[in-house]
Each structure stands twice: as C-alpha cells, then as structure tokens.
C-alpha cells in the first residue's frame, strides 16, 4: 500500500515539473536557430544601422544593402526573416549566402561563421581592401584583420571592434557603437607576431 502511494507521489511530482518546464519555456523556441544566433542576427541588423559605407561601396544610389553569410548559414532562416523588408540608412536590406570571399567583396556586411575558421585568414586577406564590414565569431578574428568579433560572455553576446581595420576599409563606425563594444582596437595589428 505504502509503495503504491509513493509511486503516485512521484508521478505527481513529475507532472508538476513537466508543467512548470512547459510554462517556463519560451514559446518561440523551435529547431530553427539557437537563442545565441537569434541575438547575433539582431546584432547584425543593429550594427548595420550604426555604420556608414563609402559611396563606392554601392553600385548605384538605390542599390540595396547586402548582408552576406560566407559559407554555411548558422542562422537557418532567422536572419532572412529578420532582415527582409528592413530599410537601413535609406537602403533595403538583402541577405545572401556566398561561397567565396571574392564573391562576398560586393557585399557590405560579411558574416564569417565559426565553420569557416580554417579559411579565415584567406577570406579576410581577400576582403581586407574592400569597403566591407567583416563580422566573425572566432577568437582570432580581429587579429586576422576582421572588423567586429562576437563572443559570448556570461551568457551575453558581446563584441570587440578593430577600428583600425574599419578605417582602412573606409567603413565609418558610429561612436555609440564603439561605446557599446567590449574592446576597441585603435592601432593596426602587427601581422609579424602571428
């Protein structure tokens, strides 16, 4: 009798925990993207809003602002959903996925996911001279000549900025954006050290 009762109590607890878990879980959580990439997608959009490109970065005055993902897309459909129909700095936003850095040279924002770590140095070398805002998520991204590097600290997505590279690429970053950065690198990186 007592055994039966213990079983019932255990079953009740389980039910309670399950309901609680169901309640606390965000409704939007699906298989599409992790919360981290959702935030990173929003960051991409917001960063673009605080950046000014030189006029030669665009083919025409009404050309769209092109955001490219180099290699694999870690956002799933999230970035596309967020960006489509947005207007930033008077230009509509277009999301593209490119396989090569050379092709990405025509984009204004290029996100290089961690999956491209192996080709990172090559990619950045290709993009270095183009008026492109490069955004990465690997620890050596800035050292290799990237402009903005995402990292996760205390469960929060943060970023460092390599202002020297931005200046070299002719991409102007808003001072407010700089003030939000964890670290801002002002001097050009000495490549010999790596």
């Amino acid at each position, binding site marked *: 009798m007592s055994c039966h009762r213990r079983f019932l109590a255990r079953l009740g607890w389980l039910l309670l925990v399950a309901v609680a878990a169901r309640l606390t879980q965000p409704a939007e959580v699906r298989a599409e993207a992790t919360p981290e990439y959702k935030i990173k997608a929003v*960051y991409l959009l*917001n960063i673009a*809003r*605080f950046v000014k490109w030189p006029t030669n970065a665009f083919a025409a005055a009404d050309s769209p602002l092109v955001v490219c993902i180099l290699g694999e897309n870690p956002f799933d459909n999230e970035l596309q959903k967020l960006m489509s129909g947005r207007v*930033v*700095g008077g230009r509509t936003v277009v999301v593209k996925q490119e396989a090569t850095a050379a092709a990405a040279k025509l984009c204004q924002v290029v996100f290089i996911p961690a999956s491209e770590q192996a080709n990172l140095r090559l990619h950045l070398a290709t993009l270095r001279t183009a008026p492109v805002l490069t955004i990465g998520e690997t620890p050596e991204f800035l050292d290799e000549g990237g402009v903005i590097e995402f990292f996760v600290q205390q469960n929060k997505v943060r970023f460092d900025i390599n202002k020297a590279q931005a200046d070299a690429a002719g991409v102007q970053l808003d001072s*407010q*954006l700089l*003030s*939000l950065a964890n670290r801002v690198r002002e001097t050009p990186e000495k490549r010999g050290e790596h």
Partner: protein
Amino acid sequence: MKLFTALPLRRKLTAIIMLVSMSALLLACAGFIGFEYYATRKALIHDLTSITEVLGFNSRAALRFQDKASAETTLASMQAKPNIMVASLYTPDRKLFATWARNPAGQARASTALSEGHRLEGGRLWMVQPVVHDGEKIGYICLESDLHEMTNRLQLLAGILCLVWMVAALAAWWLSAKLQTVVTQPILQLAETAHRVSERKDYSLRAPESCRDEVGMLIDSFNQMLSQIERGDASLKAEIAERKLAEEKLQQFAARLEASNRELTDFAHVASHDLQEPLRKIQAFGDRLNTKYAATLGETGQDYLKRMSDAALRMQTLITDLLQFSRVTTKAQPFAPVDLNEIVRGVLSDLEVRIEQTKGVVEVSPLPQIDADALQMRQLFQNLIGNALKFRKPDAPPVIRVTGTVRNGVPPPRLELVVQDNGIGFDQKYADRIFVIFQRLHGRGEFEGTGIGLAICKKIVERHAGSIQATSTPGDGATFVISLPIKHPHAD
C-alpha cells in the same frame, strides 16, 4: 477716506504722490517678474528640450542593442546637469528600460502617464520625447527637471525688486517731501495769512508773492481783496466814529431837551398849583365883597367887582386847563386794556345837560377795546365831543358822529377814530394851528375857552404813539381823525 480728507494738505499731496508712484512701480515690478517667469520658463523648456534631444540621440545604440548598462551610463551623464533629477529611457511599448536618479528617492515616471511634450507639475518640469533612429521610433526618453533654480531665481528677483521698491519708496518720499513745497508752500502761507488776518482783524497784512501760476493768481486776488477790505474798513471806521460823535451830540441835546422840558412841566405844574392859592383868595374875598358890601359899592363898583370875579374865574379855568395839560405827562398812568364804549358812555353822561340844552344828537358806533390810559381817553373824548358841542351852528342842533375802524393794512393793527360834527368848521389852513396851546381861532366873546383843549388832545394822542388830524371847511363842520395802536407791548 474720511481720515484722508482730514489730513493736512502737505501730507495729502505726499500720500497721493507716494500712492501713485508706488503703485506704478509695483505694477512694473509685477510685470517684470511675470515676464521673467515667462522668459525663464521658456528658456528652461528650451534647454530641457535640447538636453533631452541630445540624450535621446546618445541613447540610440543602447536602445537598439538593449544594452541597459550602456543606457544607464549615458543617462548618468545627467549628473553634470544639477537641474535634472530623474532621467529614464522607455522601450517603444512604454516599458521602463533604464533609469537614473540624482537622489535614491527619485522614481522613474509611471509609463502610463508617459505623454510626449513637456508638463509643469509640482515644482517639476517633465519632458518626454521619442527616440527616433533611422526613421524608426526605438523608444522614449523622459527627463524630470527641478524648478528650484527658477523659483530661487524668481525669489531672488522678487527680493531685489522688493528692496528696490522700498528704496524707491524712500526716495519718492524724500523727493515728494522736497518738491511738494513748491505747491504747498504758497498755499500754506496764504492760509497762514488768512488765519492771521481773521484773528487779528489786521487788514494791512499781505500774503507773500508766489510764482505766476493759479496759486499766484489766487494770492494776488486775495491781496487785492485785502486792500479793498482795508480801504472799506478804514472808511467804515471813520464813518462809525463820525456817527458816534453825532449820536453823542444828539444824546446830549436830547438830555438837555428833556431836562428843560421837565423843568418846564414842573414849572407849569408848580406855577399853576401855586397860582391857585392867591386866585382862590381873590375869589373868596370877591365873593365876601359881593355878599357883604354889594349895596355900598354902588353900580359901578358892582360892575368892577363882577369883572374882577369873571377874570378870576377865567384864570381859574386857565390854570385848571394848564394843570391838565401838564398832567398828561406828569400824572400819566400805565397803559391797560380799555373799553372805549364805556369811556364814551361816561363822557356822554357827563355832557348830558349840555346835549339836552343844545338839543344835540351824538351817534356812537361800537368801538373796540385798546391798550390805553383810561383817564386820558376820557379826557380825549371829553375835549373832542365838548368842542363839537361848543362850536355848533347857532341855527341848527349839533349832530356828532363817533366811529371807530380797525385798520390791519400795515402791522401793527391800529384803530382809526373819527369824530365828525356839523358845526361852524374852520379854514383848512388853520388845521395845524388849532392843536397849538393857547391858539384860538375865535374871539373870547364868541366862544369861551382857553385854547388848551386840542393841545391836550394832541399831547394825549402822541403819548399813545398815535396821530391826530383835522379837516374842515368853514360852515360845513369839522372832522377829527385819530389813529391809535390797539396793542402796546408794555401794557399790563
């Protein structure tokens, strides 16, 4: 207002000047403070708008990246603005995102009360503005500014203006006290002069000359009036002195006249009294001679004796009449109400024999009662009716009419007595002479008499403050008109 009207001119003028200048200054100060409040408030709102705009602009990235720490850092820059008490950022759906407060007690504004624009409330100025980035409203910024600076500034200004006002009041008081003498001094001097003139009755005083304004003209006129009064006063005084002198002379004359008149009356009275004594002896011894020695005297002697007796009798009548005449004043009785009908009845009964002898008729109309000396009224009627009987026509019986009429025409009311006869009359030219003592119009042979009767009548009437007049034509009777006052103020 009653208190104000009782103030001296000087005070009144000062009070008016003070009241006018102080109220004008007060209005100006109030206007100044009002304008200052308006301008300061406008400037404050303007400043706060700028600050809010800048702060909102600086918070765009923080709002975009939902970076609360960064937003709080940005808001904390308000530490440098001592007026800003609370600064808060709200999300577009009006949820509080980040806040900074100067004091720990500072509270972010409830999001429900969030409305764009500024609002003055409870000594605080609230400013809410949307934060717009890239054409998109990304949140709201709300600033709460303390108005202490403005209130302090206004209080300081009010204090300074109050001080200025008080200093101005003192200055206005001092200036008005100095300047009002220009107006009041001549008036006060004028008043002072007028007061002295009326107090001392000294019309030779003059108010001091003043400037050529209305007051100056007033002073000139006043001085001219004083000159006129002075001249008039001098001539009046001279006239009064003259009159006094004349009056004195008149009084002396009157006193002398009275004295001599009294002497005369006394003399007449005493004389006639004393004259009677020897006359009585003459008559008495004349009578003895006639009774005892008539036979021995002979015819001539008797004739002489008769003439002597007649003369003595005449003299006695004369003396009696004279005594009566003098008694009108010496034995005068005070006036008392007298019934004239009774008086006339008495007189007629006295004269009854003579009326019967002459077959005369006396018609008397009802007469009123007047204030008079009863005895003298009797004398009056006795003489007048007696005269009418005496001077009758030889061929016709006398008809005498006595009437009395009350005349109210000119107050006081008077009685007009008329005694009319159908006698011989007299020439109108003698109308005045008949009232003079001893004056006779006829020879002693024609009518006996002393010529005193009418003089007595006139004297009696005059003593009663009346008048007597006679009119006549020879052979057609005479009319005596007597006017007497009905009332005498001192009658009993």
